């Protein structure tokens, strides 16, 4: 895997001049970003600003048009790097959960450890039950995803993303598809994860939550990082007109 310089070794994620376009549509227009180990970064901004695309570039779910992305020491833009290896270090939680409907809850969580030969089935099941306990759903181990509520599904999805013990977690609007009364239980799980020292990047519309758990908040607009800073500073005293305009609409 790519050598990483001494100076950047504390950085879990480094993004340099990242560009991403879909055909002629330039979605990301040069993003630079460094995220330290254990840091919780919340990405906010209007829809279409490129938040989700940025997140998806971090584990190469989107092909990167140009620029450099180094995640956990791996240069994901280097074609020689095994992207499957990188992804084992990066858990991802989706807006629409994307649980595997043909498997039980426990099987959803066991899939990666078993298929990637990290554990045998018994170990993987034990691990799955631990993770389910952590998200408060141990009793649902043998249920099918279809029988769960939205909040429960998302908690299972978080447990599944944690199965390979990743060093980084990515959350792509993890609460946007939930009924309001279920948002809390999911945010609670994410908060516990943040408190445990996990490096996390969250794309979110929950401003209150971003303010509460974020070490840093990034405001994106039109494919660039418009403004970033500590939550108190960004929410309390935004410097940019675009940021003030956006916050006035959502707060």
């Amino acid at each position, binding site marked *: 895997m790519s050598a990483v310089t001494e100076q950047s070794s504390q950085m879990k994620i480094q993004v340099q001049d990242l560009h991403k376009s879909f055909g002629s549509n330039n979605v990301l227009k040069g993003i630079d970003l460094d995220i330290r180990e254990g840091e919780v970064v919340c990405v906010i901004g209007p829809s279409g600003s490129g938040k989700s695309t940025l997140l998806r570039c971090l584990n190469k779910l989107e092909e990167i048009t140009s620029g450099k992305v180094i995640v956990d020491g791996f240069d994901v833009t280097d074609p020689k790097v095994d992207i499957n290896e990188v*992804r*084992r270090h990066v858990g*991802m939680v*989706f807006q629409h959960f*994307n649980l595997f409907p043909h498997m039980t809850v426990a099987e959803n969580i066991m*899939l*990666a450890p078993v298929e990637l030969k990290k554990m045998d089935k018994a170990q993987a099941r034990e691990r799955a039950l631990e993770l389910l306990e952590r998200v408060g759903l141990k009793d649902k181990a043998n249920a099918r995803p279809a029988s769960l509520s939205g909040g429960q599904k998302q908690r299972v999805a978080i447990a599944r993303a944690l199965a390979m013990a990743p060093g980084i977690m990515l959350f792509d609007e993890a609460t946007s598809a939930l009924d309001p009364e279920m948002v809390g239980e999911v945010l609670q799980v994410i908060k516990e994860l943040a408190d445990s020292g996990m490096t996390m990047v969250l794309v979110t519309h929950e401003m209150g939550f971003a303010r509460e758990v974020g070490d840093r908040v990034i405001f994106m607009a039109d494919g660039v990082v418009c403004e970033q800073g500590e939550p108190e500073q960004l929410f309390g005293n935004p410097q940019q007109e675009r940021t003030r305009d956006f916050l006035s609409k959502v707060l």
Partner: protein
Amino acid sequence: MEKKQRVARHGRLQRWIAAAAIGLMALVVGAPSAMAQGNEKVDGQTYVIGTDTTFAPFEFRQDGELTGIDMDILQQIADDQGFKVEVRSLGFSAALAALSSNQVDGVIAGMSITDERKEIYDFSEPYFESGVQMAVAKNKDDVKTYEDLKGKTVVAKTGSEGETYAKSIAKKYGFTVKSLDQSATMYESVKSGSAVAVFDDYPVLAYGIAQGNGLKTVTDKVPGGSYGFAVNKGENTALLAAFNDGLAELKANGEYQKILDKYLSDPSASTPDNFFDLVAKSFPALMSGLWHTLLVTAISFAIAMVLGLFFGFLKLSGNIVLRGIASTFVNIFRGTPLLLWAFMFYFGLPQLTGWEVSVWTAGVLTLSLNAGAYVAEIVRGGIQSVDPGQLEASRSLGLGYGKSMQKVVVPQAFKMMTPSLINQLIISLKDSSLLLAIGFGELLYQGQQIYAANFRVTETLLIVGVIYFIAIMALTKLANYADRRFNK
């Protein structure tokens, strides 16, 4: 296959009417020399004789036994002359090929005596005089002569003497000739009134009437060609002589006429089998047909699944060349009739390549490639119907594309594909009936063979239809059960 044989049989008959008549006259007038019982030269010998598979009333199977005019004449001559025969039912062309390669000693297969054939075979005295006759529905009296046909439609068999004759007088009497493929279907169309009369070979027609096909003849027979027993030129002279002697003897003692009467006279007295006898008699043949239908469908569908998965995935490929290959495959086999490929593989491929293509190979190729094209589309559609988020979720866990497909996408796609696949399986099973056109012994083919011999078209088709229906219902239930069981 069938068609070719029939056409060959009817080749240039007209020119031989004279010769045949002379031959027959010589036979009747000039008493043959060796009339004594037994013939020293052939006494105790066993001869292998080749014949056709089905050419009623000359040879056909009844309750599994080969019977018919040829068979009776041959057996009685053998008995009379003191030799034994071992009959091989090979099919017309195959019987002649076997004769040429000396695998059989002689051929008796309702074969017309023609100039070309006389160059390679020695023929016996003609043992049967054919000809064309017109028949109408038994219960109708409006057509009695050719004059009554004015402005009406008649049917005749494609490529037969009957067709040639009907067309030759069509203008004169002002009627239209419609050509059909099978005797049985011709008779049905006359009975149903879509044609007023049929022109067919006299023995075939007479046999049909004898079987109670619901027709009656109204005109005299127009003389046609004569049939003879054949041996290789210059060989088996003793057998040929014995055949001629025996034939003369049968004609002299009246046995010959008895045989003809048995198959050709109108048996208004005889009561046809009732429906349940028909079911019981045809059951073994139909079950063998059903077995062939199921087997060829099962083998073909298994291959179609492999082809379909392969080309279905190719269609989803990011590579334009691979996608193009898959689309070409699908478009070719979805965009052309199944029957065309059956003919292509069975008749065309051997000529193009020199390979021997069995009817099984041709049948399986045809069905599996056709179904494969549809399955490819089902697979593509099934995989595309799975939420792309599923693949993303699996990939984000670090599983490769292949593993993700195998563990996450395909199981879900397969669940969605199952109803379409069951549907395609049933279509393939029904499509297998088209293979009767190349002589594959499936269910409908067996049904045709049965009504070609007994002319009970409607009832036989009804039985065949019920068997198809039951088989398909059972298959559907089974598939749905498996679907519920495995796709919970």
